[in-house]
């Protein structure tokens, strides 16, 4: 271990050139202790921590700009509207969408997927039609489609995965048929860390005239996402997984699709005119944003995006990869550890089991050392079934984590082996 350079070294010896100790000082919660140990936060795939700039932006919004948006003629209403719409422009640039009207604000990635399942489903999906998802999906990219199938009599087709946790693309190609209406897959798997070959998936679907939705909740915080380069038709992201507040997310949709979809919730802001005879709907993106929105959510996410881009998504990806490689080697070499998810292309997620010790027992023992991991099925039960385990321990890394923290995880696992010797 002594040959591993300390990444907090002020000379900056991590290959991505991040000043990690400076970054850590941006996150107030990283200073706290848990049970007398420094907090080691490895549950980033569940939710990320928030830098002070995001907390300050939300406070500043409420102390300086709070009003309802798109309604008032007064000063504050205009200010709030500017902040809210300014956030849309930030997200548009972050995803490289063609236009801000393609950026719909939602309650989270889950709601973004439900929006498409309901609205696209209502317009295009009929009995006997087929929807393709994959074995490695989060429940939020399974259940909305199952609900749609129950409502319409459509059929769910599932792309299988191999023992490394990669999609079996030949099987995917066989599943595409003239009855396929949409393909919905994760960009990055929350349970396995697999980065899917989304460009290939999309090109193949498009060759059949089928649109593709990508669940980007685990991708957007960790790698550069360019929706036009990828070519996806819909892309869902979650604010709280990328340093923003909870309860907020984004649905990107290509204009040509969004224009064809009916509204999914009714209320204020989504209408042009209302009468009891005939109501007409607002233009994009407002057609899909009923009611007073989560304004400070938009302000917080935009601030988080600016913060992440200030560091640089490419550098974040490179540094997190360094952490993943280090953890894979160190944790993977512990006796009894079985890594679940060994794809060639991975984001910084390490899922594993230790002998036959149940993940919850491991989680409790690590917690006593101040180490926060996720233990269980990660809202991806079909993945656990595929690998024949009740659940896994998942350590998911962010750019503010360090190799020293991974060393602490390694020591914690030795403690697990002692207790369950």
């Amino acid at each position: 271990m002594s040959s591993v350079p300390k990444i907090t070294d002020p000379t900056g010896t991590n290959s991505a050139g991040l000043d990690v100790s400076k970054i850590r000082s941006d996150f107030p919660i990283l200073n706290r202790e848990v049970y007398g140990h420094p907090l080691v936060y490895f549950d980033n795939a569940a939710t990320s921590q928030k830098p002070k700039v995001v907390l300050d932006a939300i406070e500043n919004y409420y102390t300086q700009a709070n009003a309802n948006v798109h309604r008032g003629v007064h000063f504050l209403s205009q200010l709030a509207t500017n902040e809210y719409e300014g956030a849309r422009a930030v997200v548009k640039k972050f995803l490289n969408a063609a236009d801000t009207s393609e950026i719909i604000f939602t309650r989270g990635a889950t709601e973004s997927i439900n929006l498409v399942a309901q609205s696209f489903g209502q317009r295009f999906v009929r009995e006997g039609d087929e929807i393709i998802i994959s074995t490695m999906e989060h429940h939020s990219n399974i259940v909305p489609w199952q609900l749609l199938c129950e409502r319409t009599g459509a059929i769910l087709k599932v792309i299988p995965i191999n023992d490394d946790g990669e999609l079996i693309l030949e099987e995917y190609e066989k599943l595409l048929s003239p009855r396929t209406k949409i393909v919905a897959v994760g960009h990055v798997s929350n349970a396995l860390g697999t980065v899917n070959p989304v460009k290939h998936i999309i090109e193949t679907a498009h060759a059949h005239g089928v649109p593709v939705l990508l669940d980007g909740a685990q991708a957007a915080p960790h790698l550069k996402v360019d929706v036009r380069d990828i070519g996806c038709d819909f892309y869902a992201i979650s604010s709280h997984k990328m340093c923003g507040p909870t309860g907020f997310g984004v649905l990107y949709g290509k204009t040509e699709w969004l224009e064809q979809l009916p509204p999914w919730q009714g209320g204020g802001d989504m209408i042009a005119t209302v009468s009891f005879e005939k109501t007409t709907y607002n233009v994009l993106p407002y057609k899909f944003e009923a009611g007073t929105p989560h304004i400070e959510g938009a302000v917080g996410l935009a601030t988080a995006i600016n913060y992440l881009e200030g560091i640089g998504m490419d550098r974040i990806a490179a540094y997190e990869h360094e952490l993943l490689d280090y953890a894979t080697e160190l944790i993977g070499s512990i006796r009894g550890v079985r890594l679940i998810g060994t794809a060639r292309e991975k984001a910084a997620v390490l899922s594993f089991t230790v002998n036959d010790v149940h993940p919850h027992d491991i989680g409790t023992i690590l917690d006593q050392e101040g180490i926060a991991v996720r233990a269980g099925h990660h809202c991806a039960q079909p993945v656990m079934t595929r690998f024949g385990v009740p659940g896994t321990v998942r350590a998911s890394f962010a750019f503010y984590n360090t190799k020293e923290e991974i060393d602490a995880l390694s020591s914690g696992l030795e403690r697990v082996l002692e207790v369950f010797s």
Partner: protein
Amino acid sequence: MADLSELYQQVILDHNRKPRNFRVIENADRKQEGFNPLCGDQLVLYLEFEGDVIKDVAFQGSGCAISKAAASMMTAAVKGKTREEANVLFDEFHRMIKGELDPENLPNHLGRLSIFSGVREFPARVKCASLSWHTLRAALAGSPASVSTE
């Protein structure tokens, strides 16, 4: 601060490794499923009665060390007890792991089960220890559906 050794005592680890009464009772009088949807722990509890007395009890299932040991020790504790006595044990066990009954200071019938009192320091694990007991109570009450900790 909670003490890990209070939770993972040798007796609990032993019951986890070698759960007692871990089998199926063919033609059981009652068969009850228990499920913890948050963590996926599940068990099936089998009961055989002789009049009002639990003549035999066994379980099968999968779960963490705490849930397996709790189920194992529960079966050992309630075998030969009446329904009423088993319900009293449920009540006392439940209050103990929630920190409402300190077995060292209040009269109780828990005996060896008081080894689970350490669970009260680990709120996230209370459901693990109580899954089998909730399942038992549902079985005794004759509830038709499977029982869930949620």
